[in-house]
């Protein structure tokens, strides 16, 4: 007898993807219509991709390169939010991770050791969050707020309140590397690989079902024998480890650990990326691809602000407007309206 497989889930990555497309079109129009502008693909245009020192460069490549940080943060945050949690400390964990790696590297330790220790400590930070939330039953918002505030202090202690620059080809490669075998930034390949691994881990095992059950109805999951508390601790450990990787990329991008600014405000960007990607803050559903595309959308916004020469002080306003537009397009009443129209 033929037994059909369960159908694939609906792609919730649609809205952030449309957001990215919209931004690219707007940028292209600016380039095209501006008098004396670069035209659609001329040098300096948003869509222009050149080879600089044999590696591709341009705004689009920048988005992939720097977007890796957002994508990885969002991947870590997704299981946390899907189980009704939230992690506000990811920005501070990024700073800690970068500080650890830079300090180790300056101290002459091999890159592999620095990387392992940085990610390990980031995972421990996640464990701390997880224990506060799952064992001591603190509200996730408050529990992770503690590390959000304290973590930056920890990072400053590690670097002695200095911006610590390092010179280590392997460490730098994480953020700046351009593999010869693929015309893409290494950080983006890393993010893509992490996405693939996460999808397999969540959808090819029963992890996804168990996480969604815990997020959808914690008491029902517990009474069905799901190890809800252990799973929740696990989500925070994973989130911390991802923030650690993101911290390495951020440090490598500037060849330095900046305990003051690394990862600052990125927790909010990560939460937004997850939510716009179809994982509701109320939990119970999990969408990794959506979160990753959401992460790219955040970087696309930031890059647009740079290329359009919008100052950092006013950039939040247009950013907020785009975020609002994407949210409204995906909001339940608007979707219902569209569905009604389509039905007629």
């Amino acid at each position, binding site marked *: 007898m033929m*037994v059909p497989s369960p159908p694939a889930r609906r792609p919730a990555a649609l809205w952030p993807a449309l957001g990215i497309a919209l931004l690219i079109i707007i940028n292209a129009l600016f380039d095209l219509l501006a008098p004396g502008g670069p035209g659609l693909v001329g040098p300096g245009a948003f869509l222009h991709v050149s080879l600089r020192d044999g590696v591709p460069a341009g705004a689009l490549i920048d988005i992939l390169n720097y977007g890796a940080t957002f994508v990885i943060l969002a991947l870590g945050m997704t299981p946390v939010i899907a189980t009704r949690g939230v992690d506000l400390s990811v920005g501070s964990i990024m700073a800690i991770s970068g500080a650890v790696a830079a300090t180790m590297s300056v101290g002459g330790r091999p890159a592999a050791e620095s990387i392992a220790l940085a990610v390990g400590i980031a995972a421990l930070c996640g464990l701390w969050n997880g224990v506060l939330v799952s064992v001591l039953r603190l509200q996730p918002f408050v529990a992770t707020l503690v590390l959000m505030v304290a973590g930056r202090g920890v990072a400053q202690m590690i670097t002695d309140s200095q911006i610590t620059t390092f010179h280590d080809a392997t460490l730098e490669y994480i953020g700046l590397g351009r593999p010869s075998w693929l015309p893409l930034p290494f950080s983006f390949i890393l993010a893509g690989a992490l996405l693939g691994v996460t999808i397999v881990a969540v959808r090819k095992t*029963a992890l996804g079902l168990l996480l969604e059950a815990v997020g959808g109805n914690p008491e029902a999951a517990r009474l069905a024998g*799901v190890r809800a508390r252990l799973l929740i601790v696990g989500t925070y450990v994973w989130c911390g480890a991802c923030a650690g990787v993101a911290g390495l990329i951020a440090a490598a991008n500037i060849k330095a650990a900046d305990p003051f600014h690394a990862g600052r405000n990125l927790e909010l960007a990560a939460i937004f990326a997850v939510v716009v990607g179809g994982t509701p803050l109320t939990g119970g559903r999990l969408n990794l691809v959506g979160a990753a595309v959401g992460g790219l959308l955040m970087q696309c916004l930031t890059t647009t602000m740079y290329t359009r020469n919008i100052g950092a002080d006013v950039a939040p306003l247009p950013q907020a407007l785009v975020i609002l537009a994407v949210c409204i397009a995906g909001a339940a009443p608007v979707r219902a309206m569209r569905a009604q129209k389509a039905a007629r």
Partner: protein
Amino acid sequence: MSPSISSPIERVESTPTLSVRGVVVDFPGVRALDRVDFDAHTGEIHALMGENGAGKSTLINVLSGLYPPREGTIHLDGREIRPRTPREAQAVGLSTVHQEIDLVPAMSVADNICLGRHPTRTGLIRQGATRRRAEAALASLGMYVDVSGSLGDHPIAVQQMVAIARAMDIDARVLILDEPTSSLDATETDHLFRVLQHLRDQGLCIVFVSHFLDQVYRLADRITVLRNGMKVGVWEVAALPKPALIEAMTGRTIEREPQNTASGSTDAAPEALLEVDGLGRRAVLAPTSLTVRAGESLGLAGLRGSGRTELARLIFGADAADEGQVRVGGARIPAGSVRDAIARGLAFTPEDRKAEGLVLDLSVRENILLAMQARRGALRPLRPPQQMQLADHYIRSLNIRTPDAETPVRNLSGGNQQKVLLARWLAVQPRVLILDEPTRGIDVGARAEIESLIARLRAEGLAIVLISSELDEIVRTCGRVLILRDRRTVGELEGTRITESAILAVIAGAGTVAGSHE
């Protein structure tokens, strides 16, 4: 004028207070209401009957402004109304008390009654006036409670009255009650009915939905029956005997399960699967002992709050006992460990299946799979084709009515949700099944199916513990009954001595019964 062709009676009367004509409501893939007509008059209690999925709740939600209908009209006192939100419905005089009481437990009783319509002076709430208005509203229902206390501290019955008082406070023309008695005991139900009759005699139009046929016959003046989203007809209660009502609801004649008095519990005693010895928890349950053998079903009877649910949760480990022990098949289970209990073959369907049993947004397949997958662990997933097979197997064998296995459980009716929960446990092949109110809020057809399923499982050698407020269900299903009162066991009945009146006598405390544990 013939509003409904199939109507067995048409009252030639003044215009109805509430008149619904040709209402159509569509959900994705389903027509929930198909050109439904419904009339209710001032000074009558009108029961809306039908199996789960018949469209009762949808019709109520249309009237309370939750689902604007796709087609059709609603007239109130001859004027057309189009309530688009619950607030608009209330403003025109349609007030609904939902099954799950939608009040704010943390706020005071007075604030709940006056919420959104507080008496104010220059924008500030007048606390004294609020209290007096709430007290007056409750007093008119024969209720005298402390209106300053939090609503959540009061029993469900009081909360129910508060919900009705709130409805009355807004000068409702039509009061709609969805399953108002599902959480009430007999005394509380009696009181509610007296209040409703009083309100009717004062000229209120009351629409009443209930699964309890007896209550409908006690209370209602007329009955409208829906089936599969369509109106079957409307009758005077006196003109519609129970069997005819059930036929109208189900579209077929229901065969009653045979009386189950010979339980065979005295045959060469089979293995004691569940042994509970002095199990208790301070302030929750006095030490309780019981034994259930393979192929036996033990009933736990008693009023709500007597300790039945607490006992079940302690046995399963949902709450941790602080004394006594539980053994399944001879192996002791550590207190408060659900996973150990499941591993030893215990299964438990909680009383509130939506809050504690099902993950409503997950599909039928995922809900059925959950306990098995939790036991196998995250790293040993069932392969997708096996998942589908498992789901399809139980959808067929338990006759779960769902469009397909991928439908979210939220979209199923109560009876089918209960079957999904049962399927989840059957998939892990338990030896002891503890069922807390498995037929609560479920229609006649599904109830009979679940009862016969219990009988089948018992015949297969499971030990069953059944909690039910429906004494006839306990009498039909159980070979032995443990009776609880005030959080302790007060008696036990066996075999042919199990009758509704005998159980009631023990609950009421009329003498001790032989075989009592204490």
